């Protein structure tokens, strides 16, 4: 999967590394901004009250 991604990317090694780093940042930002808040609404195990 990642090997294939590496092969698909054009350019020299340093450019591929930069492209992958940018891609990773975009993915992490998307997760933190949209995916995790959504998931958190579904799986929220934190009950802090008594009796509840």
């Amino acid at each position: 999967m990642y090997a294939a991604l590496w092969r698909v990317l054009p350019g020299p090694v340093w450019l591929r590394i930069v492209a992958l780093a940018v891609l990773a940042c975009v993915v992490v930002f998307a997760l933190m901004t949209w995916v995790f808040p959504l998931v958190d609404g579904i799986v929220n195990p934190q009950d802090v009250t008594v009796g509840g």
Partner: protein
Amino acid sequence: MDAPESADAADVETRAVATPRPRLSVVGVLGEILLTGGVIVLLFLAWQLWWNDALLAGSQSDSARDLSRDWNSQEPAPSMPAATAPEPSGAPPAQDFGLPVVAPQPEHSDVIGNLWVPRFGADYVRTIAQGTTTDVLNSTRLGVGHYDDTQMPGDVGNFAIAAHRSAYGGGLHLIDKLQVGDPIVVETEDGWYVYRFTNLEYVLPTAVQVLAPVPQHPGVPAGDRLITLTTCNPLYSTAERIAAYGAFESWQPRSAGPPAAVADIVAASGVE
């Protein structure tokens, strides 16, 4: 002894040359997906415990300060007698403002007031709203929930509230750092209610009796004005609960300004 080894090595070499590695193997892709999934789960925990926690802590205290500012900018309630204004004399005497005003129970998720606890840090302030469901506790502007069916601030009985210990702004993150006598102050539209921390109890999540008008003694008629703060224990776990109790000390209307116990942190927060 050398012969078989070199034969093996040659064999491996031949096979490697003869059958080039497949571009995508099922096991390889599956392994990568699982590894990626593991990293995403760790990222989620980091998001919940630090990213979102810091985000909510900031927005909750910002909106609490906005609320305080709004109340300050309002005209003083016409029912407030002018005599309660502080005297311009040197040392302000400990004025007696009579019995504390007790507001009616608000609708679910409506604002009750702000919680100021100097022990939790100079920049600590959170808004208390009615109800202890996630829409209050995980909110970007509230964060502290008032248990339905417990008393309101200043009332005889128990004003019981709950907040997260960690994550979601961690409203009561430092609850175990409270020291006897620490002020726990509730600011409402009517005024300021000063409670003093008395003691801490570690209880099970089922211990609803800590919310009783006389905590741990359900059925006993209320005698004192108390506050109870509940949250999770230990840190990053929901196995137990901590209940922190405080006893009512004094009350003063908004026109008298913030009480001495929190005057410095209220002034530092720039809400006046």
